[in-house]
Structure formats: C-alpha cells, structure tokens
C-alpha cells in the first residue's frame, strides 16, 4: 500500500460512520436506478414475449378493426398468398377472465392447426406430435391446450370457467404441451384452441380478428391486396408489436427518470461527503503539500478514496437494487395491467448489462461527484492549511462561479425545453439541467436566506439571545461545509415537492374531470380487463332490453367502444380506439375542449359539426398523433372510407393512448354495427341511484355486468389513479431518504468538527443543554433555509413535470395546483430532518469530558 493510500485509509477509519453513510447514500441511489431498470426490463420482456408469441413469424396481417375480417374472405386471401409462395393463417383471439382465479386471465388463441406451421412453432407443435389429441381439439366444444408452465402457474384443472364480456363459459383442458423454450410457452398465458372454438366462445361467428400472412415479395402483397374485402387492410406485422410497445414506453421512461433523481441526490451526497472530507483534512493536505506531495498526488488520493467508496457503494447498490426490483416489478406490472394490456407473469432476471450499468453508474457518479472536491484538495496551498478562514474565503470566492454555472444551466434548461424537439427525453434533459442549475444556486442564496431568518428571529425578539446570534453566524461561517449539504437537501425536498404537487394537480384535474363528465347516474358495461377500449364486448341485446325496462330510468346514453383503422394526415395508418355514442341533449357541457371553446357559439358550432359526422379527439390522441382541430382523418369502414374533420380536442384522462369520438348514428350507418358496449343511465326524479343500481343488478341476473353508480365509478377511478402513482411515491420517498442520510452525514460531521468550539463554549460556562440548543438552532436555520429554497425549485419542477413531461409522455394537460399545505410540509420536513441530523453529535459533544475536549483543541 502506498503512503497516500495509507493516509487515505487511516483518515477514513477515523470517521467510519461518515464513510458508511456516504456509501449507503450512493448505494441507495444506485439501488433505485438498478431496481427500476430491472423491473422495467422484466415487464418489457413479459410484454414482448406476449407480443412475439402472438405475432410469430408473420410479415403482414389482414385486419379490419373491431368489426373483424369476414371469414369468407380467408379462402381467397390464402389462395392468393399460397400462389405466390406465401402463407396465411386465421386468428381469433381475446383475453378472458378466469372465474376461479380472480384477477388472472388467459389469452384464448384460436388458430387453424393445419395452417400454423410456418407461423408459430409452438402452436404448430400440436399438429406435429402424433400422440396429441388433435381430433379432440378440432371437434370438441371448448377444447383448449396450454403449456405445462402456464397450467402450473395458474393451477388449471381439466374444467376451466372463463368470462368474456358478459358471457360465462366452461373450457376443457384436453392436453398440456411441455415447455420447449418457445416464447409462447414460456411467458404468455395462452390457451390454444381451434379457430371455430374461439369464434363460438367469443361470439365472433363468421369473423376473424386477423389473418396472419407470410408474403415473400411485393407481388404476393399485391395479389393478396386485391383479394381484400371492403373495410380490411394489410399492415406490416411489426406495426402491431410496435404500437403495443409504444404504449408503455412513456411509462418506462418516466420511471427511469424518477430513478435517476434518486441517483442525482445520491451524487450530491457524495459531493458533500467528499467536499467535507477535503475541508476537514485541509490541514493534512497542506502539510503533505509542504512535505512535497504534488497536486496530482493529492488529486489521486481523494479520487482514489472516491473510487473505493464508489466500488463498495455500486456493489451494495446493485445487490439492494435486485432485491428492490422484485417489489417494484409488482407495482410496474400492476400499473401496466391496469392501464395498458394484460401481460403474462413477469420475473426478475439478473440482466448482466443492467448489473454492469448499475456498477458503472455508481462508480462514475461517485467519481464525478468527488471531482470538484478533489480538484479543490489538489489546489491546497502548502502554507495555508492552519488557517480556518481560507477554505471559507476560497469557497466564497467560488460563489460567483456557482451563480454563473447555475444561471447557465437554468438558461440551458429553457433553451432545451423551448428550442429542441418536444420529446420526453429532451424534456427530462431540460428538467435535469434546471434541477442541477437550481441546486448550484442554493449555496449562493443560502447566506441571504439565513440572514433573513436571523433578521426574523430578531423581530421575534429572539435575536438578542447569544445562542441565536452564534447559530446564525455559524451557518454562514461554515458555508464550505454546509453549502452542498443544503443543496442536496433542497434538491431532494424539491424533487419530492415537485412530484407531490404534480400528482396532486393531476389528481385534482382528474377529480374535476370525473365530476364534469360523469353526468349520468349509473354506468353499465361488461367488466374490462384493462382501461384500454381494446376488447370491449357488446352487451347482449336481450340483456340490454331487460336493463332498459327497469323502472326509474329517465334517460339512456348508449355507447359503442371499438377499434377502427384510421389514416392520418401524414398518410400513415393505425388502429385507434373509438367511442361512438349518442349524447343526451343537455350533456354537451360535460365535454371540455382544450384549448377552451372561444365562445358558446364556438361550442355550439363544434357540437353541430360532431352531430353531423365530425370527430372529437382526446388530448392524448391529438398529442401522440400530431393532429389538431380542423385536421382530417380517413376512417376505414366496411361501407367505405370516410374523410372526417376533427371538430375539437377534448380533455380526457381516461387513457393515455387517446381515442376518437364519433356520433353513434354515424357509426351504426358506416360500420353496420348496432352493438352497445356500455350504457349511461340517468335516474328519474325522486329515484335513489343506489336503488336503481340494485334493481338493475336484479334485472341483469347472472350476467357478470359492471353496474356502478357515478360516485362508485369515481371512487374506483381515483383508486386506480392512486395505484398508478404508488410507484412514484415509493421512489420519491427513497430519494428523500437518500437526502436525509446525506444531511445526517453532513450536519453530524459539521457538529463533530465544531467539537473544539463547543469545548471552548463549555469552558466559558455554556451548559450541556445550551450546547444542544445551539446545535438545534443552527440545524434549524440550515433546515429552514434548505426547505425555503426547495419551494421555488419544487414548484418549478412540478410545473415542468405537469406542463412538459405529462404533456409529452401522455398528452394530458392540466392546471398546476400549488397546495400551500405541501409547501409548509416541505419546510417542516427539511427543518425536522436537519434537527434530527444535528442532535446526536451535539449530544455527544455536550457529554464529552471537558478536559478531554479542550486537550483535543
């Protein structure tokens, strides 16, 4: 071990708790980032496997929205594909709920076993295996096959009760196929059946959801295109997977960014610890310099320490991250399940690249954070080490540079947000610049804020107390020690405040929106598996008639949720969610446009256009599809393409994928579809809503309908919202935990170093209780300053998250609501954390034998 390593090791050993806190802090930061990466990867993997298993080797697909492809067209399409060296296979599929396994689902996957071979290896295995009961699969009603792992995971028996929409059926598990490593078997919970079985169970007789195609060339594509029925189109198979993947990408990106906040706070913690370690050992470095150690050797010493700490922290962080990932994965998959799509069971696998990324992140973050303190140490003048005022003077000299750097980063934040393409990534880069820029300004603003607090204490007649005066001056005198700690605490508090305000604003906006839009009293639909409109099943007409015959209904608003194929102004096409409804005459106030209608006349004009066949689109739809009011969309319908105008963009928080609204009369005419997927009912005057719900449930009989009062629906919506943001709460508390650890380390270190001053004070007659009071007041000033400075940063961050990130990620716009209680809570939290952090060392200093303490001086 070299002499410098010896010095580093022994000086760290003098304060092992300080080193341990720093290591723990950065480890927590790495843990959060790694856990999120692992959980995201696992969820993505499960999602991808679900898609891969379903899409298989198909190059193209014939689709026709919710209406489906007429089965009669299959023969001609297959013949065209085969004639050109291609292949075709029909698919009917849907997610069904397992009645005996609440909350679990199975994807019913209807195929033609004789056409499957070129497409999906696993499903075609049923044909290859001679012992396989193929005849039963083809002929027995409700016969299905699942993989061995799926059967075990779901605990499936021979008879399986499922629900699809309002239909309950019993399936027969005729065989299980062993796990052959195929994606279809490994992860997705898929039940394979004959296409006719699926049609019968799903109520899709005569219709195919899609026809998978393998088309070797453009000639084959042309040939198949000519065989297409009206309303159907050929799309590349990859598009479907891409669309599904894109659904959750913003969600994953947001989680990753939140994880990085914890790491940035951890970096501040390391910077603070390293900075303190330099300041504390200024005398040592000066002596080393006087003895002939070069600046490079001092730099190597400090960076070497950081490297060792970084390696420890990174290894510990990755280990903690793997443990934390299992917990986060449950939240991630639950949110994806709530909002986007049902995915198979996801498990954390230790991805080597993520582990290496976590290790590198921890080590590099530590080195980066320690670089400035290390350079500062290397600049130690050989003679000045004994003078305490010099580091403070040097620190104060650096304040203008900090102000310049902070201001520059804030300007860069503005430039990135305004000048660069409005992507989520650039949004986070901009906010990151803003957050770090604001953090650099914290030490600059600390002195004026503390002076203001001292002035306030003076106004409150406390300023004349010598302890208050001493404490307020101590904060300023120890700026080189406290500045970064306060910045770290401010950043963490600001991050927590920003996220809290954003979530609070979002919650308020959702609450207001629900109160506006849920204008009916009772809502009826088949229970959905996810929030997306995909797979919404029409109610049986007889059931609908039975429901509408219930006395006490004043008005009915029927709705049809469907998926339709649309061509956008840029020429691209995609399947989109559509809600077709017949609005009640007085329900137009429930539709809020963004930007708001300029006048009642404008609202009336938009409404008239909608009634006449124009579209409303939701905000997320407008954002993701880059369309606006006045644009035209081509909607592909079985009766031909319809070029429709967007009459208005509506505020809608029901899904981040967006949807188009169409008058149901038009939908019925163009799609020849009278189906109703949901009903909104208004109770007649004097009828209790709950009574009406009870009567409707009675009328529904065994049909598993969701019959909900608007109040219950609102509560359920808010529950899903809270569940969705549960993961952000976990992450922001982890980030706050990292900051509090850092603060404890920093303030405890400052108090520890002030032991000499404390001893002098005690020698002058200050009692142990007054020593503790002094530390508490000093920490209170520090904490209050950190909390107060966190408020503008947090509010700005909340504005960024609300108006930039939410908008870019999900397309939602909303007002920022600054809850004063949250601001007070932030200051109280910072002050409380600071006081707790300073108490232990102050107590120790007050208990230390005075003679020993003075001897140390």
């Amino acid at each position, binding site marked *: 071990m070299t002499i410098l390593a010896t010095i580093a090791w022994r000086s760290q050993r003098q304060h092992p708790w300080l080193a341990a806190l720093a290591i723990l802090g950065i480890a927590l930061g790495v843990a959060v980032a790694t856990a999120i990466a692992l959980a995201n990867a696992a969820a993505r993997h499960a999602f991808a496997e679900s898609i891969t298993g379903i899409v298989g080797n198909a190059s193209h697909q014939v689709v026709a929205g919710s209406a489906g492809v007429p089965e009669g067209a299959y023969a001609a399409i297959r013949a065209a594909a085969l004639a050109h060296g291609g292949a075709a296979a029909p698919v009917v599929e849907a997610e069904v709920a397992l009645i005996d396994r609440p909350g679990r689902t199975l994807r019913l996957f209807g195929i033609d076993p004789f056409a499957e071979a070129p497409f999906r290896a696993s499903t075609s295995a049923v044909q290859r295996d001679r012992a396989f009961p193929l005849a039963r699969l083809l002929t027995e009603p409700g016969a299905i096959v699942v993989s061995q792992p799926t059967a075990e995971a779901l605990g499936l028996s021979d008879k399986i009760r499922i629900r699809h929409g309002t239909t309950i059926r019993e399936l027969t598990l005729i065989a299980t196929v062993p796990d052959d490593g195929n994606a279809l078997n490994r992860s997705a919970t898929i039940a394979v059946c004959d296409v006719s079985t699926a049609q019968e169970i799903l109520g899709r007789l005569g219709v195919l959801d899609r026809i998978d195609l393998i088309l070797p060339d453009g000639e084959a594509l042309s040939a198949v295109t000519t065989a297409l029925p009206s309303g159907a189109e050929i799309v590349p198979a990859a598009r479907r997977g891409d669309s599904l993947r894109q659904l959750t990408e913003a969600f994953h990106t947001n989680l990753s960014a939140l994880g990085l906040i914890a790491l940035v706070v951890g970096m501040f913690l390391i910077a603070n610890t390293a900075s303190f370690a330099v300041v504390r050992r200024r005398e040592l470095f000066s002596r080393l310099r*006087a003895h002939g150690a070069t600046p490079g050797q001092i730099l190597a010493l400090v960076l070497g320490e950081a490297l060792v700490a970084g390696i420890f922290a990174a290894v510990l962080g990755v280990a903690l991250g793997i443990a934390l990932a299992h917990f986060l994965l449950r939240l991630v998959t639950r949110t994806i399940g709530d909002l986007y799509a049902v995915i198979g069971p996801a498990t954390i696998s230790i991805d080597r690249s993520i582990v290496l990324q976590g290790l590198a992140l921890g080590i590099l973050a530590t080195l980066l954070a320690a670089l400035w303190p290390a350079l500062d140490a290397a600049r130690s003048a050989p003679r000045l080490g004994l003078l305490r005022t010099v580091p403070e003077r040097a620190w104060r000299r650096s304040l203008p540079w900090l102000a310049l750097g902070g201001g520059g980063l804030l300007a860069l934040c503005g430039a990135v947000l305004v000048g660069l393409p409005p992507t989520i990534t650039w949004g986070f880069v901009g906010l990151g610049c803003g957050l770090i820029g604001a953090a650099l300004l914290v030490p600059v603003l600390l002195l004026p804020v503390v002076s203001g607090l001292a002035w306030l204490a003076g106004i409150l007649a406390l300023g004349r107390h010598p302890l208050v005066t001493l404490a307020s001056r101590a904060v300023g005198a120890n700026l080189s020690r406290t500045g970064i700690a306060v910045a770290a605490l401010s950043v963490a508090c600001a991050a927590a405040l920003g996220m809290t305000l954003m979530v609070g604003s979002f919650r308020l906006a959702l609450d207001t929106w629900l109160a506006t839009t849920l204008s009916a009293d009772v809502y009826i639909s088949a229970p959905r598996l996810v929030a997306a409109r995909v797979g919404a099943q029409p109610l049986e007409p007889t059931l609908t008639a039975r429901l509408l015959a219930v006395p006490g209904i004043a008005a009915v608003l029927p709705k049809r949720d469907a998926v339709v194929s649309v061509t956008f102004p840029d020429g691209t096409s995609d399947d989109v969610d559509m809600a077709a409804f017949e609005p009640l005459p007085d329900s137009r106030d429930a539709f809020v446009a963004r930007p708001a209608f300029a006048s009642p006349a404008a609202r009336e004009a938009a409404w008239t256009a909608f009634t006449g066949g124009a579209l409303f689109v939701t905000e997320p739809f407008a954002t993701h599809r880059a369309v606006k009011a006045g644009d035209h969309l081509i909607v592909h319908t079985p009766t031909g393409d319809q070029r429709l105008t967007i009459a208005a963009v509506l505020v809608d928080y029901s899904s981040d994928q967006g949807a188009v609204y169409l008058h149901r009369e038009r939908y019925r005419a163009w799609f020849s579809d009278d189906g109703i997927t949901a009903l909104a009912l208004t109770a007649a005057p004097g009828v209790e809503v709950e009574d009406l719900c009870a009567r409707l449930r009675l009328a529904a009989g065994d049909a598993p309908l969701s019959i909900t009062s608007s109040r219950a629906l609102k509560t359920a919506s808010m529950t899903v919202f809270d569940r969705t943001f549960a993961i952000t709460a976990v992450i922001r508390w982890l980030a706050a935990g990292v900051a509090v650890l850092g603060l404890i380390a920093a303030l405890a270190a400052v108090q520890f170093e002030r032991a000499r001053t404390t001893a002098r004070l005690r020698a002058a007659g200050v009692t142990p209780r007054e020593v503790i009071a002094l530390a508490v007041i000093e920490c209170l000033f520090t904490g209050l300053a950190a909390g107060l400075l966190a408020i503008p940063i947090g509010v700005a961050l909340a504005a960024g998250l609300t108006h930039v990130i939410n908008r870019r990620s999900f397309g939602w716009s909303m007002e920022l609501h600054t809850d004063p209680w949250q601001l007070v809570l932030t200051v109280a939290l910072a002050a409380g954390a600071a006081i707790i952090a300073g108490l232990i060392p102050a107590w120790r200093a007050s208990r230390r034998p005075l003679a020993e303490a003075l001897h140390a001086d």
Partner: protein
Amino acid sequence: MNPADVKSALTFNRVSKSFAGRTILNAVDATVNPGEIVVLLGRSGSGKSTIVNLAAGMEQPDSGSVVLAGHPLAQVSERERTLLRRRSVGLVFQAFNLLPELTVFENVHLRHALDGRDGTKEVEAMLAEVGLAGRGGEHPDHLSGGEQQRVAVAAALVHQPALVLADEPTGALDQVTAGVIVDLLVRLTRGRGGALVFVTHNPEYVAIADRVWRLDDGQLSQERS
C-alpha cells in the same frame, strides 16, 4: 542533490512581498551558504514566516527572485517547486506538522515514500539519532511535545536537504526540551552539510548562528555572529 554541490543554499534578490497593502518585505537581499546556520530574529508579525514560505517555494514574491539550491523558483513550474521542496528542503514548525494518520516511522519516511524510494535504513538511522529507536510504530499523538518535535526534526533531515527551515521550532516547548531540540537540529544539520535558517523571536539563540538576520519594518539587516 548533495548540499555541498550548490554554491548557495538560498538567495533572495531584492525580494518584496506585501499583504493587504502592508509591505512585509521590502527589496530584501540575502544569501545562505551551504552548511551555514542563520538565525532570523524579528518581532511577531515582522514577516519571519513569510521568508520561510518564500524560501520553501510555498509563496511567490511580488518582485525580486528567490533561488533555492541553485534553482530560481520563479522560473520553474509549481510541480518542480514542489519536487524541489520535497528533495532539497526540510521544514520544522512550532506546531510539529506531523500527520496524525501516520506512524512515527511513516512520518519520517514520507518524503522517500512520495518519491517512490525505499529509504528504510536512513529512516531507522535517523530515528536512532533523535533518540526514538524502536518507537517507529507509535502514532505522534501518543508522544510528548518534545518527542513529536524530534520526529519533525528527523523528518526534516532524513533526506539530507540543502536547506532546513525551522520556524519557531521551540515555541511550544519548555526551556529544557527546547534546548535539546535546538542542539539536535544544529548537530544533525551540520552533520549532513546542510544549511539552517532558524526563525525565532528569542535572542538567546543567536549563540548557535554563523550569521544573524534581523527583520524590522520590511528591512533585513545582517550581522556576523
């Protein structure tokens, strides 16, 4: 560098230095010859420590030049100044200037270690010379003030510097211990052919000097002892 190889251990050519508008040194000319012992006298705040800092290359003059062991300090880089201080200068301070993180042996061995040289034998011999043989494994804070200063003397001389700068080395010691330290410092410096600048405000130490410098109002006056 062997101390005998240089023409002068230290030369000040019209060196001036001010702090906060107050002139501490005003066009000072002075030379310390190899093997010579100079006692620098002056009141507190007269600029004695400034001369030490300038001589060790730890500060730069406002004007004039400092030549250390034949090297004009203004003409070499910061790194070269550091290496020159490491190899050609020994420092002894009132506050001992030992590193508490290191043992007695490691403190004395520090300059060799920084240079990547062994020097174990020299360190052990030096510890024996200052009366601390067998105590190399102890930490400085377990030693008395006199013992700590003996370690500092050993550390300042183990690498045979051309110039030893002792800034009030007896200021924190009682009279008897101070006498022991001064004797040690003079004996070991002379024994290794180095020069010694002994900074003090105590006129009694004039007795050890070949030459005496007096610093007053920024002016340096010299006299033979």
